[in-house]
């Protein structure tokens, strides 16, 4: 009996070591891609170069990660999927809450930096939406890194990276490097639409605005 238990434990340990190694390899690839993107944003503020680099890095990284994860046993993938999904949803909720807090604090202080930060948190929540085949998170990492140097470029980059998930469909015809001002406006307007208008409603309904509006109608 004890021999059977030891054999089982050894097999299990070997299996777990293999899974751990595969996940670590995948994680290393993600870290390498992040480092590459941070290197580029450190060297230049040229949006065209940054976008080209992100697209290039993401293509190679995605291919390598897919190859690595194919080695994972099917059972492990099935076990991991719900946990990853739960973590993804919690992260989206967390970023949305941070975006809301940044907006309220901005309203109370009029600090423009908080509004930019809130828009980036909002973009981060959009970046985590499915499907995960697009390099949206890499755009957000680059945007956050760029935020202190050039906030408008940072917002434009985040808007371009998450453009397929933004609710406002009036997207600029120009590319972000041709008109970063418009792309930044797209992200900020989407942030206002999805986060700020809801926050306004929550606050103002609580303070009695709806009764005033009803009075106005009468």
């Amino acid at each position: 009996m004890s021999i059977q238990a030891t054999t089982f434990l050894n097999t299990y340990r070997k299996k777990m070591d293999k899974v751990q190694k595969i996940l670590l390899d995948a994680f290393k690839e993600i870290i390498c891609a992040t480092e590459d993107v941070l290197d580029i944003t450190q060297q230049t503020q040229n949006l065209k170069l940054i976008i080209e680099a992100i697209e290039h890095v993401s293509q190679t990284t995605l291919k390598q990660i897919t190859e690595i994860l194919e080695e994972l046993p099917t059972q492990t993938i099935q076990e991991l999927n719900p946990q990853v999904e739960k973590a993804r949803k919690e992260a989206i909720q967390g970023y949305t809450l941070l975006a809301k807090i940044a907006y309220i604090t901005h309203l109370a202080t009029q600090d423009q930096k908080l509004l930019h930060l809130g828009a980036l948190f909002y973009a981060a929540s959009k970046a985590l939406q499915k499907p995960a085949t697009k390099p949206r998170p890499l755009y957000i990492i680059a945007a956050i890194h760029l935020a202190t140097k050039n906030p408008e470029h940072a917002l434009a980059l985040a808007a371009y990276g998450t453009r397929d998930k933004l609710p406002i469909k009036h997207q600029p015809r120009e590319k972000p490097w041709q008109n970063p001002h418009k792309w930044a406006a797209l992200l900020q307007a989407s942030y206002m639409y999805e986060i700020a208008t809801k926050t306004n409603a929550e606050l103002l309904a609580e303070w009695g605005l709806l009764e005033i509006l009803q009075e106005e109608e009468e």
Partner: protein
Amino acid sequence: MSQKENKEEDHIILDSNLLVYAFIDTENILSRKINEREKIYSRIAKYFFYETPTKILLPNFILDIELPRILSKLIIQKHITEETKLKILVNLPKQLKQLTHQLQLLEKFPQQVDTQYSLSIN
């Protein structure tokens, strides 16, 4: 000009009471203070303001006069005296002006309509 092109060039002016709901999204808020009617107003306002290609004529006086007037009425009638709440209410119209400027950049609004012109329309 074809009918389709004509449709894309349509401009509308929302009633100012309805327009407020484009900035205050009551549609998905769970609160006993919000009734079904307000949710419908919000849906209509949001649809025209953000979701259609229809261009909105937004008269200046709504953001410059109407909205501050309603918010002032709220402050007085509900006796709002807390400093943070007052700051938020004072800064809100500025924020909404910024939003309309951003939407104007994205060509959602054809042009900024001046008060005189919009008053003559009304």
